[in-house]
């Protein structure tokens, strides 16, 4: 009895060894579909970003917009549908690598909208690059991302280099003699604030840093009011900007509040409340709704019962670029990559002309930074900030 048992185990061990070897030698599935088929259906567009966790609020509107774009596309192409595959990185670089690998491994995924943040782009994009899977990010604005030689990288918005000086130019245009600069220490916020500081020079009287998830801003508020600043630039996102602004107003700060595109969303208005947000300024490398909006806002409202949030319009346009490519019969990653390289059209929701240079940046001439002022519970387009 015991003999048999031992032998059985030995056999299993041997089998497993062979099998392990065989398995290790076997190449994984991957790569692209055979391109000969006339029309490839059920293709997927990956949406990559923080869909859960603390930063989801900045990314989910984009996901909704992408869903909307695909839904509209599928209504017209019922015979050959496309779907969105979500990759929820929670905004964490350490999770992004695995998801990127998994997206690469799914041959149906032919393009990625995202990764939404700069940090996760650092870990995910090298993997996409290796597999030749094109990405267009709607919101990762760290300038250095374009310097990595990633051919697949495309940025659907202007980077911090375009926005920072523009924000500074705006602050100069309102003749603020003393400016206080605050950032949230995020890659985005700190980068933007640094550019603003550089451009403003000596008019910056003081600066301070907030932290992720901060609720109590009393120390900064005290510093701001005692500095006598007449304008404040905040580099960061709505999540902290909104309570910060409210506490500033409650603390007696009367000057102008200026932020980047991180606060240019509907939540900034609704969470802060009309009374306190009135007069706040957001700069955004995106043209106002009136120039080329189409029906995006109405469609989004009808679908989700909410105002389109931050980057929803950008994500919508970027998704539509992929859909356009697929609609033209492009079905491999290489084809789509080539399609992007020669693309040159204006987006229907943002009005931005999407045309990328070889580093993947938008044509600087196309990056128009606008200022928006919160008026009566809405972001009213103010002006296009002239290039310095």
């Amino acid at each position, binding site marked *: 009895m015991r003999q048999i048992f031992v032998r059985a185990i030995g056999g299993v061990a041997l089998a497993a060894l062979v099998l392990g070897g065989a398995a290790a030698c076997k190449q994984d599935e991957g790569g692209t579909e055979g391109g000969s088929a006339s029309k490839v259906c059920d293709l997927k567009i990956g949406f990559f970003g923080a869909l859960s966790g603390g930063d989801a609020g900045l990314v989910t509107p984009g996901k909704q917009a992408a869903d909307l774009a695909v839904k509209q596309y599928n209504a017209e192409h019922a015979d050959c549908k496309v779907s969105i595959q979500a990759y929820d990185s929670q905004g964490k670089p350490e999770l992004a690598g695995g998801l990127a690998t998994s997206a690469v491994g799914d041959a149906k995924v032919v393009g990625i909208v995202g990764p939404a943040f700069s940090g996760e782009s650092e870990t995910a994009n090298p993997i996409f690059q290796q597999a030749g899977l094109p990405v267009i990010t709607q919101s990762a604005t760290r300038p250095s991302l374009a310097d990595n030689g990633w051919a697949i990288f495309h940025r659907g918005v202007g980077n911090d280099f375009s926005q920072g000086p523009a924000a500074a130019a705006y602050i100069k245009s309102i003749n603020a003699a003393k400016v206080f600069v605050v950032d949230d220490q995020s890659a985005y916020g700190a980068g933007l604030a640094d550019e603003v500081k550089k451009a403003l020079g000596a008019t910056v009287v003081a600066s301070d840093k907030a932290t992720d*998830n901060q609720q109590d801003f009393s120390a900064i*508020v*005290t510093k701001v009011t005692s500095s006598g600043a007449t304008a404040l630039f905040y580099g960061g996102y709505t999540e902290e900007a909104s309570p910060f602004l409210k506490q500033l107003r409650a603390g007696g700060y009367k000057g102008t509040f200026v932020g980047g595109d991180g606060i240019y969303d509907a939540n900034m208005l609704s969470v802060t409340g009309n009374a306190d947000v009135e007069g706040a300024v957001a700069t955004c490398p995106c043209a106002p709704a009136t120039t080329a909006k189409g029906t995006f806002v109405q469609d989004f409202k009808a679908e989700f019962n909410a105002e389109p949030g931050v980057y929803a319009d950008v994500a919508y346009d970027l998704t539509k670029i992929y859909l356009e490519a697929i609609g033209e019969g492009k079905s491999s990653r290489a084809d789509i990559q080539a399609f992007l390289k020669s693309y040159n059209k204006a987006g229907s929701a943002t009005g931005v002309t999407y045309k990328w240079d070889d580093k993947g940046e938008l044509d600087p001439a196309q990056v128009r930074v606008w200022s928006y002022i919160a008026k009566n519970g809405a972001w009213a387009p103010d002006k296009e900030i002239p290039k310095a």
Partner: protein
Amino acid sequence: MNELINGFPVLTVTGLTQGAIYALVALGYTLVYGVLRLINFAHSDVFMIGTFGAIWTWSAFGFDANSPRPSVGGALGLIALAIVVAAILCGIFAMLVEVTAYRPLRARNAPPLAFLITAIGASFVLSEGMAAFTNRRQFGVPAMLPTDPLFSIGSWQVTPLQLTTIAVAILMMVALDWFVQRTKFGRGIRAVAQDANTAALMGVNKNRVILLVFLIGGLMAGVAAVLSDMKAASTRFNVGFLIGLKAFAAAVLGGIGNLRGAALGGILLGLAENYGSAVFGTNFRDFIGFLVLILLLMFRPTGLLGESLGRARA
């Protein structure tokens, strides 16, 4: 340094205000620790639920972030109502945590570290449950009290919100102190904290006392949640984490298990953070809080006032 000197009065008042909120939350940690020797990690999420309780109450009366400020009388009424609702809500959730996550373990006399894991589990359930329920959205708090200073003495100014916060916090702490020191239930809590077995021999129902302790901790967190709502002006499902961490540190600072220690620790932490932020920058705010805590523990290993619930008198 200049910022500290110039802003000293304001920093002190705002630090006291924030400290009062920490103290109220810290009471929940310290009460539970005093009786069960357990760090109730889910307490921060109970607090978070309270911040929503207040917002829901106000929105039931048609107040959202865009509403105009109500009259002072109306505002005080609304605040009182929100405090009641949030306190009850937090009390219920705190008791639910005890009944579902801790009591079954106690019945099996589980080792202390097992409680830590169910505490973490309960914390996940509450915060992620709320995240799903609110679609992870951020909510603005309606404006309630006027923001102009109520009175000023030299450069010392106090706004109505600061006065309300500090007054309510002091009121709650005095009431709690009276309850624990003077009433029969309070004696039961202290008895269980000091010697649970002997307390049972005196006819004290341990489980009922523990439930009561969670209820009180929840009530305090609920009150703190309303005050914090008005101060911070917004809330989301993850607001509990940081404030919970600070409140826990405050409880340890004062001597965990000691009610007056929690109050003292909260206020000291609030002040230290504000002064420190002015000198070193707000990015070092949390660093300073922990540094103060660690340095203190090096020299007074059981916190400022020592441990044990109800022993402050002895």
